């Protein structure tokens, strides 16, 4: 029989340390739904999604019961809708409403893929889709949107960056009465992964199979609990080793649930995303892991180094536990979704500049950060450009999800509730980047892109 302490460890992780599978995400290709008539195209999209994912929620619930591990979200990602808009023309909001309708009918929590890939330039449908994003997000609740504006291979499309500064503001303005929630569902990427199960940035890349299951795990609470038990004089080599072991165990659950879900649904299993995804629940915070390592508060000097160690150890532990790793894979640092980050931002230790430095060594980027309502679009574009530059030069994924708190000053707070948490409005630099952003054009790809 299994070792008693192993059994108790698993149960304690689930019951007390918030271990869960964050999401089972079904990726669905919509290439075969393209039609020159937008209404016919929407109908085909609806039919294909509801047909492919008909049992997704049911299978998720069955696995939850069987293994006793919560599966928090069941989600769907689809082919970037800009590609369908390119074929059909018409108002992209129709696709948004179709996706929302499908998500509601299936009972999935979120649906991603109202997206465009414009890292080297706009093609048919891209600009129309980006311009429709604020309206689409205002009229829906489960839809998520993303735009890829740069890559290591192609550089950064600064025309898109300029446009998106306005898009982010507009998305917040249209949902001003509802805590500017529109902007929480829009991510701007550099080097966007095609198989990401996490929202709001999930879309089903053009290189993916017709239908596939990806899994995203969670478990900052478990890592923190392990570190809590170690003495203060335990050296960092040993700390890294402990995190690796824990990440291995967390990832194995993701692998188990993912392969079984794929088999039950009769579709191939894609990847496990090795991410530490925090939730606003007490004890489920990435910031608290860093503080457990010995930092007085997340955001102080030493934070970047501690995060680099954490991120690397999570990957090393996880990679052996899974047959196929992908997506974003790394520690997430979304401010509003992490109790420790919220505290650190409230007291001013964690600033936008420090967060930017942290994104150079961990997963994703400036995530779920509220900025003052009077922040100009050009400043938002400049924040996006900075983050994209870090991703481009370091050959990693970076992203920006900032929320202009329309009508709110610095120090106010936006309450999103649920997994999205609450966001203290953080200060941004007042000096303008207007002229730089207005130039447009493209930042050429760096030398790192010439690997052949």
């Amino acid at each position, binding site marked *: 029989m*299994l070792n008693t302490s192993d059994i108790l460890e698993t149960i304690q992780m689930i019951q007390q340390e918030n271990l869960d599978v964050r999401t089972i995400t079904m990726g669905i290709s919509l290439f075969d739904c393209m039609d020159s008539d937008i209404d016919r195209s929407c109908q085909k999209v609806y039919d294909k999604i509801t047909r492919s994912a008909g049992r997704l929620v049911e299978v998720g619930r069955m696995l939850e019961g069987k293994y006793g591990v919560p599966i928090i979200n069941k989600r769907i990602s689809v082919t970037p809708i800009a590609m369908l808009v390119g074929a059909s023309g018409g108002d992209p909001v129709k696709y948004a409403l179709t996706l929302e309708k499908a998500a509601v009918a299936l009972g999935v929590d979120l649906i991603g893929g109202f997206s465009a890939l414009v890292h080297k330039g706009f093609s048919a449908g891209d600009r129309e889709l980006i311009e429709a994003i604020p309206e689409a997000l205002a009229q829906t609740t489960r839809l998520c949107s993303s735009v890829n504006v740069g890559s290591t291979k192609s550089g950064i499309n600064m025309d898109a960056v300029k446009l998106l500064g306005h898009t982010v503001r507009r998305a917040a303005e249209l949902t001003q009465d509802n805590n500017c929630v529109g902007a929480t569902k829009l991510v701007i990427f550099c080097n966007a992964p095609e198989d990401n199960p996490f929202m709001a940035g999930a879309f089903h890349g053009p290189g993916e199979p017709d239908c596939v299951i990806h899994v995203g795990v969670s478990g900052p609470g478990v890592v923190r609990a392990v570190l809590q038990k170690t003495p203060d004089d335990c050296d960092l080599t040993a700390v890294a080793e402990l995190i690796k072991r824990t990440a291995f165990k967390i990832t194995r659950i993701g692998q188990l649930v993912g392969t079984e879900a794929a088999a039950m649904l009769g579709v191939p299993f894609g990847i496990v995303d090795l991410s530490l995804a925090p939730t606003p629940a007490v004890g489920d915070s990435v910031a608290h892991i860093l503080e457990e390592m010995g930092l007085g508060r997340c955001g102080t000097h030493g934070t970047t180094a501690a995060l680099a160690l954490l991120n690397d150890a999570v990957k090393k532990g996880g990679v052996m536990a899974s047959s196929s790793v992908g997506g974003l894979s790394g520690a997430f640092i979304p401010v509003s979704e992490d109790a420790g980050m919220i505290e650190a931002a409230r007291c001013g230790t964690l600033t936008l500049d420090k967060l930017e430095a942290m994104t150079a060594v961990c997963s994703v980027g400036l995530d779920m950060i509220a900025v003052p309502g009077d922040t100009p679009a050009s400043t938002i574009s400049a924040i996006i450009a900075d983050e994209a530059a870090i991703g481009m030069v370091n050959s990693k994924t970076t992203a920006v999800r900032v929320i202009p708190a329309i009508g709110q000053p610095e120090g106010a707070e936006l309450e999103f509730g649920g997994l999205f948490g609450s966001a203290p409005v953080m200060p941004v630099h007042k000096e303008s980047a207007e002229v730089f952003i207005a130039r447009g054009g493209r930042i050429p790809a760096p030398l790192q892109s010439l690997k052949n």
Partner: protein
Amino acid sequence: MKAILTVLGRDTVGILAKVSTECAAVQGNIIEVTQSVLQEMFAMIMLVDITNLTCSLPEFQQRLVEMGQREQLVIHVMHEDIFNSMHRI
């Protein structure tokens, strides 16, 4: 197919008997039992063969959880694979 059944609660007479009766009622075959009583707390881990269950695994879980609530015990039933995949390479 096996499941791991854990029981936690205040020690009273007949906990093991009640849990085994529930298992036997649906043809759950108890393979191994580890139990201890620390002060007044009862803790038990059972390995149960569920291959020939006369009901589904969710129904089996439901039965035991409801019985646990009646007897003020915390009972979890989880498929063995989750422990195997986490703790064995």
